[in-house]
């Protein structure tokens, strides 16, 4: 049967099992919008294209599936760039459809023309300009395939307007073969054996797990490894949830700039560092030359470019984390009897308890002032850790990461690599669409929330009862913290005491608004807000000059922590 380009595009989405997409219309995509009511895909109309891409990203992070967003050409397309870069840095599978001016006008500076393929080349895994309607179906298939396989990432498909009304025979390709693209790397068995021997020999092993464990769905394998062999685990911000944050024995918390004392000391003292799906970001390593100085470093990653990029690795293992950890599990089972794992790392684990006792993750609470960490703790208590938590960027993000004990993968959504303020709320919207019955909480700063606040309208319209808890310190807190510590308290451009009335703002949109100014009300009001069946903002006035500790100053070694 002959279909138009617009119909083909939507049919492809159905074939890919897409049930929802986030978008914003315009002249260049009007033909697609014209067809949307005829297909089974729900379109969620956002209020800004950045909201659409972050929502698609949040949907992808929460479900492990591929997120989809649709926007028009020119300004619609450029408005997605921050969100594309965010997804790219965190390896999140999303497919972005952008409208393009009609083919004959491309390159002529036509109205609302922009070379979005050129603009997004460095921040997509791959991108396409479709030039013939007969290529459309294959291109969409490839886009989804590329987005979710290997190291996942965003893929953009730019479609000229005239193609949308042209017709051709629809045929969805069964499979994709790209001679130059062959991911899904099986681990080298020799390297696995070597690693098994290293683990057997190690006295002070440590697992450093990253977002790759979550995207490859290998948390079960990771948990087995840690528990059976009694190896403590630390993780990156992106890796939170792969190992349960409420395991008090083997879970050390996050490492790096705002990592725990215990995790950073463990990195510094371990003799075997097993990095899985993590990429040695500078926020994690501190001063590179002093990172894990006594350790043999093993690095498992599906992306060869991540290996040997920042630190020199003794045993590289290019493989999908899941197949590598499964192979390792098999290997360890075969040598398991040779070692008394229950006792093997006893001393090492005792040392870890000691570090934890010396400098636990903590804060100085206050009788009167509301400490932001206290609010996060309460959120954890009330939700019992069963919510999907999103964060904005800044202190709010770090406190959330430190004090909300993430228990399961795909339940902590945060912009790690790019650190995008304005990410959390639209991402929460995407997650809520994916899980209508789950409690989705966005832990926000008063600065960040104002970057995409317009999506309040979207969540209200679509009955997505996202809860926004603003840790309102009246500052761009994280920058203010740096100014305090390293710039002689010159709080230039970080004081944000001129604010909208967030309660009224929520109400103006038709959501619920709450304000908490007294510590005694925190728990009560949060409970109430989490019960209400509509989106809401809880504006919590927290201690203004609270800092995030521990802190490793940029460029210092992990052991040089500023503590509470």
């Amino acid at each position, binding site marked *: 049967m002959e279909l138009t380009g617009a119909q083909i595009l939507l049919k492809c989405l159905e074939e890919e099992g897409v049930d929802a997409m986030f978008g914003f219309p315009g002249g260049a995509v009007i033909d697609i919008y014209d067809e949307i009511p005829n297909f089974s895909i729900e379109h969620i109309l956002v209020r800004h294209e950045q909201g659409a891409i972050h929502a698609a990203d949040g949907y992808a992070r929460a479900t492990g599936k591929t997120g989809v967003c649709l926007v028009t050409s020119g300004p619609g397309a450029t408005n997605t760039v921050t969100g594309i870069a965010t997804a790219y840095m965190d390896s999140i599978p999303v497919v972005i459809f952008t409208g393009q001016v009609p083919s004959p006008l491309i390159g002529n500076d036509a109205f609302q023309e922009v070379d979005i*393929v*050129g603009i997004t*080349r*460095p921040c997509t*895994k*791959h991108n396409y*300009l479709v*030039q013939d309607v007969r290529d459309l179906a294959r291109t969409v298939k490839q886009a989804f395939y*590329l987005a979710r396989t290997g190291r996942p990432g965003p893929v953009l498909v730019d479609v000229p307007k005239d193609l949308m009304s042209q017709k051709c025979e629809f045929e969805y390709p069964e499979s994709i073969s*790209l*001679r*130059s*693209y062959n991911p899904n790397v099986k681990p080298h068995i020799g390297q696995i054996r070597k690693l098994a021997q290293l683990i057997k020999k190690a006295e002070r092993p440590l697992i450093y797990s990253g977002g790759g464990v979550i995207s490859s769905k290998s948390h079960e394998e990771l948990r087995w490894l840690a528990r059976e062999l009694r190896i403590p685990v630390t993780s990156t911000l992106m890796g939170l949830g792969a190992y349960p944050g409420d395991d008090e024995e083997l879970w050390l918390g996050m490492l790096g700039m705002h990592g725990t004392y215990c995790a950073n000391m463990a990195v510094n003292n371990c003799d075997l560092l097993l990095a899985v799906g993590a990429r040695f970001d500078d926020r994690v390593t501190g001063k590179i030359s002093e990172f894990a100085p006594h350790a043999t470093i093993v690095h498992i990653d599906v*992306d*060869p*470019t991540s290996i*040997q*990029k920042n630190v020199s690795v003794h045993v590289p293992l290019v493989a999908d984390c899941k197949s590598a950890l499964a192979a390792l599990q098999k290997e360890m089972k075969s040598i398991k009897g040779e070692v008394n794992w229950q006792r093997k790392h006893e001393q090492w684990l005792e040392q870890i308890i000691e570090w934890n006792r010396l400098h636990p993750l903590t804060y100085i609470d206050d009788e009167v002032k509301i400490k932001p960490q206290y609010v996060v703790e309460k959120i954890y208590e009330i939700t019992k850790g069963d919510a999907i938590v999103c964060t904005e960027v800044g202190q709010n993000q770090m406190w959330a990461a430190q004090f909300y004990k993430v228990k399961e993968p795909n339940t902590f959504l945060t912009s790690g690599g790019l650190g995008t303020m304005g990410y959390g709320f639209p991402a929460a919207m995407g997650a809520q669409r994916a899980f209508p019955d789950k409690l989705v909480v966005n832990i926000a700063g008063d600065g960040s929330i104002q970057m995409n606040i317009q999506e309040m309208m979207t969540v209200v319209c679509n009955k997505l009862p996202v809860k926004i808890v603003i840790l309102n310190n009246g500052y761009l807190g994280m920058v203010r913290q740096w100014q305090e510590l390293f710039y002689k308290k010159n709080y230039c451009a970080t004081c944000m005491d001129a604010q909208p009335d967030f309660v009224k703002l929520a109400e103006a949109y038709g959501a619920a608004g709450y304000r908490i100014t007294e510590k005694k009300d925190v728990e009560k009001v949060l409970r109430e807000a989490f019960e209400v069946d509509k989106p809401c903002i809880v504006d919590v006035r927290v201690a203004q000059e609270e800092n995030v500790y521990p802190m490793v100053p940029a460029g210092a070694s992990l052991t040089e922590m500023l503590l509470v």
Partner: protein
Amino acid sequence: MKHTLSVMVENEPGVLSRVAGLFSGRGFNIESLNVAPTLEKGVSLMTIVARGDDAIIEQIVKQLRKLVPVITVKDFTQVQAVEREMVLVKVNAEDSKRAEILRITDIFRCKVVDVSIDELTIECTGDHGKIKAIVNLLSRFGIKEIARTGNVAMKRAMQID
């Protein structure tokens, strides 16, 4: 250190800027870049000469391999390869100098491809050293224009000790 990379790519729109973007995005200079179709339909070969320490080049090679339209990447620095470049040089050649210039072109087995009253245009093919030498020798007559192709390279069939 100088590296010669041989990159086989799908011949599709944007592939050149994807490849070049990898270098510019990391702040590295490409010394020369040469692209042309191969015998295989839809496949082009790029020869890229770039400078950088080993770690940088290793990263670049891996990043190149990661690009979807890139089929293979070879670094010819460690293996024996044939490398050639072609240059066209338009040089001042008044009567008194002409004989000497022709003698040099002879020695270098170059070709004269264009002649006028006071200019000669010379085509020369060779490896980096030879090109450097001929350009150097001709420069004292006054070079008016020069056009170079950049390197093309191919692995030697057999390595003889």
